[in-house]
């Protein structure tokens, strides 16, 4: 939708994946762009199949393996950007950018077993670094206003509230200059 508002200034550079770090539970976690292999796909399905329904947000992830697969098929397309947090051969978290007109809608999920360990911050920074390197300009999201952990994460990253009139907050971030402000290219300022 064209009437969404975004910050005027472009966000700082985010690190492009792959990156690796040790989480607060001393686990080695790797952030990597999603590769379309059966192993990666099934590991992601397994994460969502074991996802606590109380952490669903606005209807996603859906419940039940069949609906999880349908949803993933829609957001793992070639026009989307997907990043996974891997702990060994297990998917700990997933973040995605799905195209919406001239912008992208963002969502991020970290499995309950891996929450409160700093993975979400690395994961969203990795996703934004990936999108930034690929030339994504604007990102928006909605978040339930009572979800304070998520809201503070988004604020820390640089998202600004663009609409606070509904149950859900809408937030926006500018990753690269709009077209015309600079030459075609990566546009990274690092």
């Amino acid at each position, binding site marked *: 939708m064209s009437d969404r508002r975004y910050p005027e200034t472009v966000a700082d550079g985010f690190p492009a994946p792959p990156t690796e770090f040790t989480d607060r539970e001393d686990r080695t976690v790797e952030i990597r762009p999603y590769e379309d292999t059966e192993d990666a796909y099934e590991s992601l399905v397994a994460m969502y199949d074991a996802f606590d329904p109380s952490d669903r*947000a*606005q*209807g*996603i992830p*859906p419940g039940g393996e069949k609906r999880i697969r349908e*949803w993933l098929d*829609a*957001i793992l397309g070639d026009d989307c950007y997907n990043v996974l947090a891997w702990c060994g051969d297990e998917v700990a978290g997933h973040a*995605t950018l*799905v*195209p*919406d007109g001239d912008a992208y*809608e*963002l*969502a991020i999920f970290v499995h309950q077993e891996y929450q409160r360990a700093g993975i979400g911050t690395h994961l969203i920074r990795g996703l934004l670094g990936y999108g930034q390197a690929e030339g994504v300009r604007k990102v928006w999201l*909605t978040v339930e206003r009572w979800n304070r952990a998520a809201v503070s994460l988004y604020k820390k990253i640089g998202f600004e509230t663009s609409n606070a*009139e*509904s*149950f*859900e907050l809408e937030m926006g971030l500018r990753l690269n200059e709009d077209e015309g402000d600079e030459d075609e290219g990566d546009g990274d300022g690092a």
Partner: protein
Amino acid sequence: MKVLCGIGGSDDSFRALDRTVERAAVANDDLTVAVVDNDDSAVAQAEVMERAREAIDDAGIDADVRRVEGDPGSRLVEIAEREEFEAIVLGGGHTSPMGKITLGPIAEFVLLNAKTSVTLVR
């Protein structure tokens, strides 16, 4: 049951219309379809009225279709109270490209302010 179905022309409102009409045919509801002025809708009010009448004719039921001017949420609540409707039915929300559901301002207002039960159709 005396049912007030509020529609403004969004996709989810048409889904609510179809389901409510279907149910009315089976349950013999006393149905009124209120076509509200939804700024977020791309479909003109006259066209929405037409869609509502078609749905009602197709189902072979007798229902009232009326145009409602003014602020949609508060008008629906007011009509439901004044005319003693037992339930209000609305669309269940817009689905984003991601698959996230967001409720529009009309549904929010009605949910919080109606004295009747409110059904959001998914």
